[in-house]
């Protein structure tokens, strides 16, 4: 479910949007920033996957009695927080692209 966040965003092709804007000649810096932003997004998605996986591992160790209740709760809460942040940032990015696509030309 989470890879979809990272996988879908690059497919929006920020490059073409930036390239179109670049013809105005004033968007050299935003082009670099756009590339960075998608890198940041995929990094966030990767981090979210890692956090959720470690939370799952800790939960399983908790069920087996190897991890304390506090450790399990902490790991799951961290996963929840990471996921929430990732989803919020994705929503924000998607709404920005929607805004662009509705722009009157």
């Amino acid at each position: 479910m989470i890879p979809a966040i990272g996988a879908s965003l690059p497919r929006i092709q920020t490059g073409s949007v930036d390239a179109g804007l670049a013809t105005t000649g004033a968007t050299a810096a935003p082009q670099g920033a756009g590339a960075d932003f998608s890198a940041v997004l995929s990094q966030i998605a990767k981090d979210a996957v890692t956090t959720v996986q470690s939370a799952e591992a800790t939960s399983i160790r908790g069920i087996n009695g190897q991890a304390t209740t506090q450790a399990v709760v902490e790991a799951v809460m961290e996963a929840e927080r990471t996921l929430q942040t990732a989803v919020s940032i994705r929503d924000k990015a998607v709404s920005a692209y929607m805004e662009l696509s509705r722009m009157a030309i």
Partner: protein
Amino acid sequence: MADPLLSSLKIAASGLQAQSTRMRIVSENIANAQTTGTTPGSDPYQRKMVSFQSELDRVSGAQMVSVDKVGRDDTPFILESDPGNPAANADGYVKMPNVRMLVEMADMREANRSYEANIQVVKQAREIINMTIDLLRS
């Protein structure tokens, strides 16, 4: 510099851990309140006490808490006259553990209260973090 809110969560978690250890020691004391020695005149279970120390988390620079050591209570054992007991000495006295129920109950209640306080810190920090993330929505 690590996020202070995330540090609060970690510090509170270390507090929870420390108080659980304290709770464990209290339950050991209560469970062994009647544990005598096995040979005549031998020492019974000695009450345990837990002490905490602050510990610097090098990643975030936060002061966590951890269990320093589990020490032994050196107050004298209680002597009870029970000549039939296998642990009785030549005079018929048995050494009983130096565990006093009232003290253990007070200690348990204090551990409970500290645990609650740390839980409250976790709740508050989480609420603040969620409020901040919610700024992205709307």
